[in-house]
Structure formats: C-alpha cells, structure tokens
C-alpha cells in the first residue's frame, strides 16, 4: 500500500480535464440531442470534480457548497431540457441537430 502513488491535486485535475474534454467532444461531435445532453452532464461533473478537489486540497469548504448548488441546478436543467427535447420530438419527429436549423439567416 505504501508504494502506491498518493493521489494529488494534479491527478484530480487531469481526470477533470479529460472528463471535460470528453463532454465537449460529445457536445460538438454527436448529432443526437440526448447524447449531447449526456456530454453536457459530463462537463458539469468534470467541473464538480475540479471544485471538490480544490476544496479538499485548500482546506476550504466553499467549493463543496458550490458543488451542491451545481448538482441541484443541473437536476432542474435536465428536467426542463428533457421535457423540451420530448416536446421537440413530438413536434418535429426528430432529435437530430442538423434537422433543427430553422433559426438562421
């Protein structure tokens, strides 16, 4: 156990950056709105992880309090967002972003 590498702030941050990049890639590259949504959630959780890590290593609880807010807001956002997607699907019979470009020049 003793020769195991102690996880430091950098490790957490690297994981957070990887998660964030994955999420951003999903948002940019995937076409299905549901999957884009999942990408968004991944990005939010990457931010949460970074905040908790900072909070832990700086011995400051502010970051963790922030995370609770983010989780709450994210839950509400998901509820509204999914409802919108459902409504959109009923109206247009598609959940693909290429088909939803009527708001343009």
């Amino acid at each position, binding site marked *: 156990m003793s020769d195991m590498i102690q996880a430091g702030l950098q490790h957490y941050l690297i994981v957070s950056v990887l998660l964030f990049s994955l999420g*951003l890639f999903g*948002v*940019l590259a995937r076409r299905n709105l549901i999957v*884009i949504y999942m990408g968004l959630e991944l990005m939010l959780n990457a931010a949460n992880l970074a905040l908790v890590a900072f909070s832990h290593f700086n011995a400051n609880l502010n970051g963790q309090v922030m995370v609770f807010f983010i989780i709450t807001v994210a839950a509400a956002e998901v509820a509204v967002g999914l409802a919108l997607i459902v409504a959109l699907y009923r109206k247009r019979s598609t959940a693909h*972003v*290429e088909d*939803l*470009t*009527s*708001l*343009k*020049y």
Partner: protein
Amino acid sequence: MEHAHNAHNAISAAAPAFSSRPEDLAWFILLLPLIAAAGIAFFVRKSNVLSAVFSIGAVLAAFFLSVGLFITFGIGGEATVTTPFSWIHVGDLNVNLGVTVDRLSVLMLLVVTGVSALVQIYSTGYMHGDRSFSRFFSSLSLFTFSMLGIVLADNFVMMFVFWELVGLSSYLLIGFWYEKPSAGDAAKKAFLTNRIGDFGFLIGILMVWAATGSVSFAGIAHKLGADPTALGSMASIAGLLVFCGAMGKSAQFPLHVWLPDAMEGPTPVSALIHAATMVAAGVYMLCRTFFLYQVPAAWPAPLSFLGSISALDIIAVIGGFTALLAALIAIQQNDIKRILAYSTLSQLGYMVMAVGCGGPDAAMYHLTTHAGFKALLFLGAGSVIHACHHEQDIWKMGGLWNKLPVTFRTFAIGTAALAGLPILTSGFYSKDAILDAAITGGHPVLFGLGVIVAAMTTFYMLRLVIVAFFGAPRTGAASHAHESPNSMIWPLIVLAVPSIAIAWLPLGDFLSAHFNPHFHPHEGGGIFGPFNHAPLAATFGTGALLFGAAAAFGVYWNVPKDPLPGQLGLIGRAMKNRFYFDEIYDGVLVPLHDMLARLADWFDRWIVSGLIIRGVHGSTELVGRALRLAQTGNLQTYTFMFAAGVAVVVMIALKLK
C-alpha cells in the same frame, strides 16, 4: 473681478426693481408696444377700431412716459444704467437685460415714440379700408417695440437681438401687400441685405467680447478707458465690423440697394421705418458705441499699410460717398417716394460722415431733426399719392399747390428744413453742425463734398416741389385731386412744428455735452449762433442752398418734361438707372452666389451624402451581409465558436500573465 462686480450690481439692483425709481419707467415704454402688438394679434384682430385704439394708445402712452423721462433725465440728470435682470450667465459671459437711460436714449425715445404715434394716427386715414388693417397696426407696434429695444439696450447682445427684431418687423411691413410680387421681393431683398451687414456686426461683437471680456457698453467703455489698446491689433477691424451692422440698417454703400426698393411698403411705413427710425438705428448704434472708435488705429500685420488711417476715417469716406451717390441718383428719379428714399440715403450718408469725422453729437442732432422733417415729407408724399389716386410719378402731377393747401404748405416746410433754410428751419442747424464737424475733424475734402451734396439736396427737393405742386396739372388725376382726410392732415401739421421749432432749442449743445463732459456752449449762441462760431460752415451751407435753389428754379420752372436727361446724356441715364447698382449686383453677385450654391450642392450631393453618408451606410451593410453567414442555425456551430472563443480568451489571459 469685474464679473463678480457686475453680478453684484445685478443682484443689488434687482431688489428694488419697479419700486420707485423713475428710470424703471423705461421698461414700461419698452413693453407697452409689445403688449399692444400681442393684444391685437391674439384678441382683437377682427376689430379694426380696437386694433387702432390699442396700438395708438400704447404708443401715445409710451410717448408721454418718454416726455417724462426726458424732463427727468435728459435735462438734469446724469447717465444712468439700470440692469435689473441677469439674463445669460455662462462661464465668462454675463449678459444682463438692462436699459440705458441717458441723454442719447431719452432723446431717441422721444423721436421714435413721437414719430411712431403720428404715423399711426396718419395710418388710420391712409390705410382706411385695407383688409389687413389690424395686421398693419400689430406690425407697427411690433416694430416700435423692437426699435425701442435698440434705443434702450445697455449691451451688445440685447441690442443685437432687437436689431434682428427690427429687421424682421421691417420685412413684415415692406412685404405688407405680399400679394404684389414686387413687395415680396423688396421685403426679401431688404432682409437679406440687412443680414449681410448683421453678419459683420455679430463677428464684431464677438471680437469685442473676446478682447474685453464684456458685452455691456459701460463695461467695454470702462475697459477701453483704462487701456485704449485693449482691443489689440484688431481694434480697427472690430470697429469696422460693428460698423457693418450700421451699414446694413442705415443703408450705406455698398449695402444701400434695399432702401429704395423698400418703398414698396405702405407710405406710412416708409415714413416711420425707412426715413425716421429704423434707418437711423445704424447711426444711433455708432453714437452709442462711439467709445469703440476713440481708440488709436491698429491694424493686423497684413493690413499694416493702412497705418494711422483709423476706422473712423473709413466710415467718414463711406458716409460721404453714400451721400454723394444717393444725391446724384435722386436728381434723376421721377417716383416721388424714390426721390425721398434716395434723399434719405443721402442724409444717412451725411450722418455717418459726421460720426466718421468725430462728431457723433452732430450726427445725432441731424438724426433728430431729419426724423421729424423726413417723416413729414414722406407723410406729405403719402397725402399727395392718396389725393392723386395712387399716382407716384411727379411728372403726372402738377398744380397741386392750391388743391392740397395744407399738404403743400407742410411739404414746403419739410423741403425747406431738408434743404437747410437758415435761421428758420431745424435742418440748417444740424447740417451746419455736420459741416462744422468735418472742418474741425480735419476733413476739408469731406467738407467740400458735404457742401456739394447740400446744393444737390436743395436742387432735387425743389425739383420735386416745382414739378409736383406748380405748373399746370399734367393728368386728370392731378387736376381733380382734393385734400386728404383730417387724420392725415393733422400729423403733417404736428410734424411741421418741430421742423421749425427744434431750430431754436439748444439741442446741439445738449448732445455735445453728452459726448464731451468738458463741453462749454459757444459764446454768442442763439439763432444766429452758427454764423458766429462756425462761419465757414454756415456761409458755405447757405451758399449751397442758394445755388441749388437758383439752379432748380432755372431748370424746372414751367417745363412740361424733364430737360436734364437731354443735357446730361450718358451720366443722366446712369443717374436715372441708379448707377446700375442693381444690374451690377445681378450680373456679378447673383451668378457668383449661384456658383457657390452649385458648388455647395455638388459637395452636399457627392461628398456629404455620396461619400460619407452612403459610404458609412454601404460599408455597414456589407459587413452585416458577411457576418450574417455565421448565423447557420446549427446549434453545434455556435457551440464550437463559443468554445473556440473561450479557448482564445484563456490563451490570451495566460499569455498576458
């Protein structure tokens, strides 16, 4: 320091305003005609009688108040300035609304309100039956108000405002019969010509203000008294620019062209505005601001060749030239009102010449007497025109002396006064004062010119009298003429009194004492005074009168038509055609102006709206069209741009660190 002082004065003077000081009466004199004008315009326009009552009542009240002021201040009192209202206070600029009550202004108040009252009474007869009767009286009241404002103003800004108001009311009155195209044109011509002069006036005011930091006459006079070089190298230029205003209003060469055309207005207007008061405003302003011209001559470097020639010298030459030019033109005019108009021009030139020779007292003296007898002459001419059924050509009159006895006698008195009949008439004394000013001012050439003009004045006035009133009637209208109604006759009689009586009042000394505190009346004054203390001027003046009279009787007694054009040939034709000034202006200034207008139009069309406006509009639209392409409607494009933007911002932030 001075501003603080002024402000303090304004405050301390504001407290007891309208309490008991007699000089506050001046405010009532000023405002009464305005109240009448507004009252007529807003309430009693439909009633001719009420309109006339309002207007005449206001001006008569103003006249009697002026008499009171004259007795209180003119005869005994010192100069008083009352400035109860601080009007504009911006930074260094401090303008009060104030009235000047001194000998100069109380005398002018008498002239303006007196002539205005008589002219308005006369107008009830002359304008009888005109469908715009009440508009006429409203305009006359507005004019009287504006003119009184010029007279009472105690600073340049207030004077300029009323100066423009006079221009406006003159425009309204010249163009009173606006359905006549000639009247409308004359009104526009008068207004525009005046505006040219006023432009110079405004720049002059700004220059004086910039140099002295004050716009009040007392403040500037005080500054210049302490330091005569306060105006710097622009002293003479500033003086000449202020004179530009007088040039427009008092119709001096080269801005004289509007006055004869202004005779298109009703004759009472010609009498009031274009003979007695408005055109005198220029001369009055020169006298009021005479302190500006008492500083040593100074020119900016490019004009340094002018050396010690002062602004006054130039003013004197312009005045003298105008006097000569107008007299020459008057000799060959046939329209009774135009003869008088050119005679007015000539006499105004005389007054300006007097100011230029350093004799503002002589100029004011002549202004006062001239206002009386020239108004008399114009009203007399109006009576003649009225009697001859609106015939204005003197060669279509004749033999009127026994048909219009009162008009003839009063007109003869006016003519005698204008010609300067010694001892008996006011014109002799004031003209003598001007000739005397030319000698004592060291201008022998202008003196000679003044004498020649005096002879010519007698000549053309007697030509008018002989042709119009004597000989046989030349047309049916003249042979059936009958005397005008009483409302027109009485003002003539009343005006004839001062044409004679002012002669025996010590008005000249009264004015001289205003301009020169150390003035002592001449020894051996009295009615023969001029022959004692200014024998040269008096003798030559009388000689000129006799010569002119002899020539007029020799040429015009009992002739059927004008014999002069045949003898004078080309010069005569030039005189008859007003030396082609209108044609020259038409041929030179109008095309020049058109060219400028076309250039401005081209600049506006192609540079301003083409290049600048359309350029800005076009490039904005082009950029807009290009940027529009970024709006694809695809959510992921936006996200990508947003993320890329954030990345760029973060990179820059890290670089900067």
